[in-house]
């Protein structure tokens, strides 16, 4: 047993972090918000130069063929920096969906472009009030055409391709759609997270192709893997919040003492750090299991998701709180995480789904063991 990142993974983490620290400091994020930018293209290009979008894509399709845990190391760094790049949409969700469910031709057609980062894809699943993954999607695939409305869809303003969860012959399925068709209308929505634009996409008998391996169980497994990456993002963001709160309170005097010397502040940050380290431990295991022990993935992914979201919610809120009034200003950096936390919590489905998935899988395991 050896429960730690490898030397290569630690190096990957360091390199990704330094790249992001150099390219995407908080002032740049502020500028992106001011510009109502679609994304941070410069940072994306820099990530591409490191080959990171291709990390988990098989070498045969232009990627590096690394593991889920390697990808998690990257996701954690992106979460820490609150980077405004379509890594989750394009790589974690869409590219993985294609690698899992696509035909050989579909993989050859799309994965190299996604791996290099020249192509951006997104994953369209939610249908407004009906939720993140409607059991009977309103978007229908019939005779090679896709019809219906998806919203909200992240990063759809810059994506050329979408993997769309839809209903085909009465079954949940995944379709590939080129977004550059006149039969598709994209409308930018109001997003709570100012660094993660979302769109409404209306498909009006748009040309699309199904991916053959995209049935319900495999979509669930895809979403398990995506949940693991989101958990890594949340862990990175939570750690950033704890450290930001620590640093700020160490430097701030209150009633003649450092703010950091008050037990109320210390215990708050100790609790959020503990929650973060516990969540990190779950993320490590889930990242490992995603590649090495897929049978344990449903429990591990749900556990990583539940713990990491709780950790980040506490860390993002209490970091702003310990900053006091300054934390409520746009010039401070707390708000980036206060908003991003909501994105992570609301993307990929409610706690109820993950709690149910965990309970069912645990009971199946223990019944099998018995």
């Amino acid at each position, binding site marked *: 047993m050896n429960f730690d990142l490898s030397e290569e993974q630690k190096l990957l983490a360091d390199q990704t972090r330094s790249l992001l620290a150099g390219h995407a400091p908080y002032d740049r994020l502020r500028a992106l918000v001011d510009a109502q930018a679609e994304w941070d293209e410069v940072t994306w290009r820099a990530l591409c130069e490191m080959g990171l979008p291709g990390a988990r894509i098989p070498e045969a399709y232009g990627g590096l063929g690394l593991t889920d845990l390697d990808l998690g190391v990257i996701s954690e760094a992106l979460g820490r920096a609150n980077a405004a790049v379509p890594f989750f949409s394009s790589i974690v969700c869409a590219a993985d969906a294609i690698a899992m469910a696509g035909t050989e031709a579909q993989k050859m057609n799309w994965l190299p472009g996604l791996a290099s980062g020249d192509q951006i894809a997104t994953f369209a699943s939610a249908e407004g*009030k009906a*939720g*993140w993954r409607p059991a009977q999607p309103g978007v229908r695939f019939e005779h090679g055409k896709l019809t219906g409305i998806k919203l909200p869809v*992240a990063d759809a303003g810059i994506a050329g391709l979408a993997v769309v969860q839809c209903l085909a012959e009465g079954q949940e399925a995944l379709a590939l759609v080129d977004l550059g068709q006149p039969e598709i209308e994209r409308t930018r929505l109001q997003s709570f997270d100012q660094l993660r634009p979302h769109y409404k996409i209306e498909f009006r008998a748009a040309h699309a192709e199904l991916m053959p391996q995209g049935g319900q169980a495999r979509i669930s497994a895809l979403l398990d893997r995506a949940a693991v990456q989101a958990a890594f993002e949340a862990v990175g963001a939570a750690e950033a919040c704890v450290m930001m709160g620590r640093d700020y309170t160490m430097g701030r005097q209150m009633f003649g*003492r450092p703010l950091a010397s008050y037990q*109320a502040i210390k215990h708050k940050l100790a609790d959020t750090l503990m929650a973060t380290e516990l969540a990190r431990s779950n993320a490590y295991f889930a990242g490992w299991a995603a590649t090495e022990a897929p049978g344990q993935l449903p429990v591990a992914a749900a556990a990583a998701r539940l713990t990491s979201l709780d950790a980040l919610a506490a860390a993002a*809120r209490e970091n702003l709180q310990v900053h006091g009034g300054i*934390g409520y200003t746009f010039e401070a950096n707390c708000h980036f995480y206060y908003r991003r936390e909501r994105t992570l919590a609301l993307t990929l489905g409610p706690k109820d789904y993950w709690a149910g998935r965990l309970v069912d899988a645990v009971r199946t395991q223990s019944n099998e063991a018995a």
Partner: protein
Amino acid sequence: MDFNDTPEEAAFRSEVRAWLQKTAPAHALAAGQQISDAEQVARGKAWQRAKYDGGYAGITLPRVLGGRGGTIIEAVVFDEEEARYNLPKGPYIGIGLGMALPVIGKHGTEAQISRFVEPTLKGDLTWCQLFSEPAAGSDLAAVRTRAVRDGDDWIINGQKVWSSWAHHSDWGILVVRTDPSVAKHKGLTFFVIDMKTPGIEVRPIRQISGASDFNETFLTDVRIPDSWRIGAVGEGWACCMTVLMGERLNQGEEGKIASLMEYAAETPAGPGTALDQSANRLSLATAYAEEQAQAYLQARLRTMVSRGENPGALAAMMKLSYASRLQKSSAIAMEIRGAGALAVEPAESQTQALWDDYIWSAALRIAGGADEVLRNQIAERVLGMPGEMRADKGVPFSELK
């Protein structure tokens, strides 16, 4: 215990109701109507003037000060009835009535009272507060803005933050340091200040919400007469306490959680709605129960006040409870809606209102006594537990780090 109006209260209520029916519609804003800040101030002043003319400005203020001399229950009755209309009100009016008048009434001279009270009640004079500073948030007594005596005048230099609507206010209430050689609570003095005095610069603070309700106010060699001083030199802390005691009772907004229940009921989930799930029922019922509890705690505190008793730090529970619940319940409601609450079309105002609540709750947990400060107050003043060990006690301000 009686929740029903006494005969006197009932009579007052129908009088108020009749007056509002006649007067309020001309002042009310249409639902969802967006107006500029300047128009908002103008209409707020006009509505305050109407209340003055009707005899309802300063209901609890003594008659000698131009108020109605009524009971706190009458003020509550008026507020309840007034809340049936969407009327223009804002901090520029509320700070005058709730903060400036009490301190002027208690610590001011006859001349100051006659100069400021009536115009404020009439809505002719609007107010902002200039208390907090970058290095003096929860620790208000740490203010560094200096006032130095110069003949009959004072020269003021420094910086204030978190002044609501300072850019639209006529006058400000201001606390400054006049003696750095004594302990920090002792060297403070209180002033009122005309916001058009040369040397005052108001800059909006950009908030995380995107709005700029608050300002930074820079004071550079601002010369003001000694006649604007309220209370004695060195009495500033006592004046601040008078100001801050005022307004903690009115916290929270009833009906919020019931609307979240409807929001959940409008969210499809499985064969039914999200409100059919026991986890959602439990979290919303718990929030609703707390909301009710706070409304009844408020009623207990108002009853105390109406008898001349001081609820003291019990009042701190109002904001402490409300702010946390607002943050938690708005987050829960977003989670109940799920991905659909990530981003919405412009017409989807319910979800956007949740976002606003979630953002505002972060401010509310800090402004007017941060959570941690309020917990200290409850522990120390209600439970009688010892104060913090303080490194600054009795040390001259100028010698503090």
